[in-house]
């Protein structure tokens, strides 16, 4: 950290919030608010005279509130840069610090927050994680029983720089405990609070136990666990070492802690699973190994940076296996436990990885993006004609579209990822997506439904999930109806309602609208744009009197080949059960309405020529008849 502060090209800004982020990869503009410290950074030399004379003491959060700090303070003694701060909420304005600072004149009570904009090329988010508060679990009595402490409190209590200078004391009477229990999975692997495994607590419990055993060889240590998870290199060996040292492991999740009101000793009630018996053991102190949870302000950070969260609140990576440190927004990277529960080696690796990913951008003059971006036909955009619209901007998950009434909507190409949501949403068909134009899509639909459309199940599949699901169904040899005809688009957001009208107009027996599960969407909120539209369509078709099951919405992940096969088979059953005659009748009666609804699409440039393409495509697909034998 000191090296980083001294580096000529590194500018360390502490006590500073990122308030706004604008721009795009390589060209971000970041608004920073440096909060007022009431101490001038250019003059303070970190001598600490101000803290020494300060008469106010408040609990010190760095010491888990086990020790006090002054109103003039540094967060911790190793802070970089070593600058004191005056806590205005606690300060009584006695100005003793000003006196103590003397000729340095570093203390300045007139200081105000400083807001400035900074240009940056890439952003690394390393906001870390927080801890579950076990006081919401009354069964463990944290907050009521003084000798029930959390892992972080233990960390301070046995730290030589901590409030007890490393002497492990019971909070109730200051005596060294002789029997200590460590309870794992407090708030994690618990559906009532956090379903995830916090990943590092098993090792953390063993580490603390080994450390205590080394410091106090006579201490009795018991670790209560559900499963001990030691998946990385050297971890299992460390677990073995702890067992060799005589640390007792009890498999069984304690259901209750009770306290003897006189001795303040604790009784842990659990089942010993190996014995199948309920056991109650007495301890002097109990340490709760709390779950790792996202920082309390993740929602704010994710909205400022426009990055998404996985279920539970961790920041979402672009791809869990192949791009684990990239955020869905180009140029923003994730390091460490803000992305998910990580131990130190994993955090360091992800930090190094995101630094190198960020460096790639800083060293490039040009940045290659996917060619499938959206483009606006300025003459068709009604915003250019002075009418208020902006539907496309609302559909964009990346904030890549700016709409100003009087001017045509503008797509920032570097921000566009090519989901096609805006293209499908635009009511005037004024946006097109390169390589996925309306004309190209219609040509495919017409080709696929050229022959006996009433027997066909037309499936719109998104590139990232349901297409993969269909693929898996095939490679896994799951049987499904051969009448299925699938078309790939990048995202369910691109599945224009006109496409579905067109498919039904052409006489499709059934239409499947499929994409990712909401939390898996590759384009942040693309699925939501698609889902809203699909629900609207479903209602329309219900009103039109369409037989239930002919239009179906299903969210299918790339791992759900079985589901894809099942859905197609169920749709096949709907068509079969309906019977040819009734189906034909229904298709014919709805044709005019479908045509009316899809009419706007027909005047999109190139769409009329689409029939030519579709003829060619049909020809290519029916290999039996090749004109002129070519």
């Amino acid at each position, binding site marked *: 950290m000191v090296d980083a502060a001294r580096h000529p090209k590194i500018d360390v800004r502490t006590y500073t919030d990122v308030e706004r982020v604008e721009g795009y990869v390589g060209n971000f503009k970041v608004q920073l608010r440096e909060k007022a410290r009431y101490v001038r950074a250019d003059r303070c030399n970190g001598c600490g005279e101000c803290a020494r004379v300060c008469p106010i003491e408040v609990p010190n959060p760095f010491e888990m509130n086990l020790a006090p700090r002054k109103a003039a303070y540094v967060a911790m003694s190793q802070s970089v840069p070593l600058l004191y701060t005056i806590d205005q909420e606690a300060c009584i304005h006695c100005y003793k610090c000003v006196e103590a600072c003397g000729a340095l004149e570093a203390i300045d009570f007139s200081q105000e927050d400083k807001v400035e904009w900074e240009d940056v090329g890439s952003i690394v988010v390393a906001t870390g994680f927080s801890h579950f508060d076990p006081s919401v679990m009354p069964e463990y009595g944290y907050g009521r029983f003084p000798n029930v402490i959390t892992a972080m409190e233990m960390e301070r209590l046995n730290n030589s720089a901590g409030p007890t200078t490393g002497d492990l004391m019971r909070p109730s009477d200051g005596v060294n405990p002789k029997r200590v229990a460590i309870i794992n999975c407090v708030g994690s692997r618990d*559906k009532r609070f956090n379903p995830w495994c916090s990943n590092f607590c098993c090792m953390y419990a063993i580490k603390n136990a080994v450390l205590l055993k080394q410091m106090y060889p006579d201490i009795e240590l018991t670790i209560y666990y*559900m499963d001990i998870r030691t998946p990385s290199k050297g971890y299992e060996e460390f677990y073995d070492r702890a067992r060799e040292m005589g640390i007792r492991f009890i498999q*069984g999740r304690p*259901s209750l802690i009770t306290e003897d009101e006189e001795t303040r000793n604790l009784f842990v009630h*659990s089942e*010993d*699973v190996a014995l*199948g018996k*309920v056991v109650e053991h007495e301890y002097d102190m109990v340490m709760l190994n709390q779950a790792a949870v996202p920082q309390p302000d993740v929602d704010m950070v994710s909205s400022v940076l426009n990055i998404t969260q996985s279920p539970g609140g961790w920041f979402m990576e672009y791809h869990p296996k192949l791009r684990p440190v990239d955020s869905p927004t180009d140029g923003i990277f994730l390091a460490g436990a803000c992305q998910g529960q990580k131990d130190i080696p994993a955090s360091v690796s992800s930090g190094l990885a995101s630094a190198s990913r960020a460096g790639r951008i800083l060293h490039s003059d040009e940045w290659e993006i996917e060619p499938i971006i959206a483009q606006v036909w300025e003459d068709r955009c009604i915003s250019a004609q002075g009418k208020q619209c902006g539907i496309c901007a609302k559909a964009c998950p990346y904030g890549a579209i700016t709409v100003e009434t009087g001017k045509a909507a503008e797509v920032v190409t570097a921000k566009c990822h090519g989901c096609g949501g805006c293209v499908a949403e635009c009511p005037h068909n004024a946006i097109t997506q390169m390589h996925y134009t309306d004309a190209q899509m219609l040509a495919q639909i017409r080709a696929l439904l050229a022959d006996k459309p009433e027997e066909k199940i037309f499936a719109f599949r998104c590139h990232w999930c349901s297409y993969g699901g269909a693929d898996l169904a095939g490679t896994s040899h799951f049987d499904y109806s051969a009448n299925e005809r699938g078309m790939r688009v990048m995202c369910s957001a691109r599945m224009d309602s006109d496409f579905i009208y067109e498919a039904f107009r052409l006489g499709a027996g059934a239409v499947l609208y499929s994409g990712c599960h909401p939390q898996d969407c590759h384009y942040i909120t693309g699925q939501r744009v698609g889902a809203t539209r699909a629900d609207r369509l479903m209602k329309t078709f219900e009103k039109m009197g369409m037989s239930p099951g002919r239009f179906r919405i299903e969210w299918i992940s790339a791992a759900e080949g079985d589901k894809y096969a099942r859905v197609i088979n169920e749709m096949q059953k709907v068509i079969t059960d309906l019977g040819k005659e009734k189906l034909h009748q229904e298709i014919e009666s709805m044709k005019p309405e479908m045509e009316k609804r899809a009419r706007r699409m027909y005047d999109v440039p190139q769409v009329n020529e689409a029939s030519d393409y579709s003829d060619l495509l049909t020809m290519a697909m029916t290999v039996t008849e090749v004109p002129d034998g070519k």
Partner: protein
Amino acid sequence: MESERPLSFADQVRAIPGGENLDMCYSCGTCVSKCLIQQKLDPEYNPRRLLRMVMMDMREEAFKSPTTWLCSACDLCYPACPQKIHISAVIGAVKQLAEEAGYISPLETVVVDESLCAGCGICVMTCPYDAPHLIEKEVNGVVDRFSEVDAEKCMGCGMCVAACPLGAIARPSVANADIVSQINLRAKKGSPSLVVFICDWCLRVEDDVKILESYPENVRVIHIPCSGRIDPQMALMALRSGIDGVLVCGCAAGECHFKRGNYVSECKLGLLDGMMDQMNLNEGRVRFVRLGTQDRGRIRHEIDGMLAHLQPEVA
């Protein structure tokens, strides 16, 4: 596609409402240690193992297991389960299958004396398990209503026994006469006498049970299956026989082993205490206390507090 595999035991349990979360159990043992049955009734009692038996298709073993029959569905374990499994519902599903297979509950149940029963239906309203119901039967040429107890549902708490105005229902091993006969004690002059009715389930730890044994003879401790088993008449009998106070200990709110016995008892005794001045007695002679799972050692304070409260009565 319909599966052609025959239904396994686990499938059958899953098909019964409440049984569907069976497979989520990862055997952490929280339910076992939250429950008091293993400590108080049967060391073989273990819900975790019962769930495992179901998953492993051990049908007969599951049906014979005491866990199937002893669970009173108090649901102390349900809010503690980290996998949110409604354990008592799973056990209920196993019990239902066991009954269908012809197994009979080994529990002692209450029995109705038809010569006394008037068919008023109070027991039907009181029972937390819907065990009693009214039937019509011809006796000596006259059709009359009687209460009948479904032996498979009765858990033996005795709330109906306490509620029956005619004393027509009884659980033989915990007869009214047995309880009343224990209300006899003689206090030394100058020290108050106290009868403590204590429910079998409100004291979690051995240390607390030992505390009860430490009191001199002016405190008589009477164990009952549930605080709901207490008939206010018993308290009145105690007061009439010259005893200064009656303390009834039940479980904390939401922790009653028989779902709502503590609530019923607290209501009844609260009413009775409100009527004390009609009998020219001071209020506070009858008291109900709730002892929660974490109230280790509180029983001593409650008894000592009651004795201190009664001291002016003897002085």
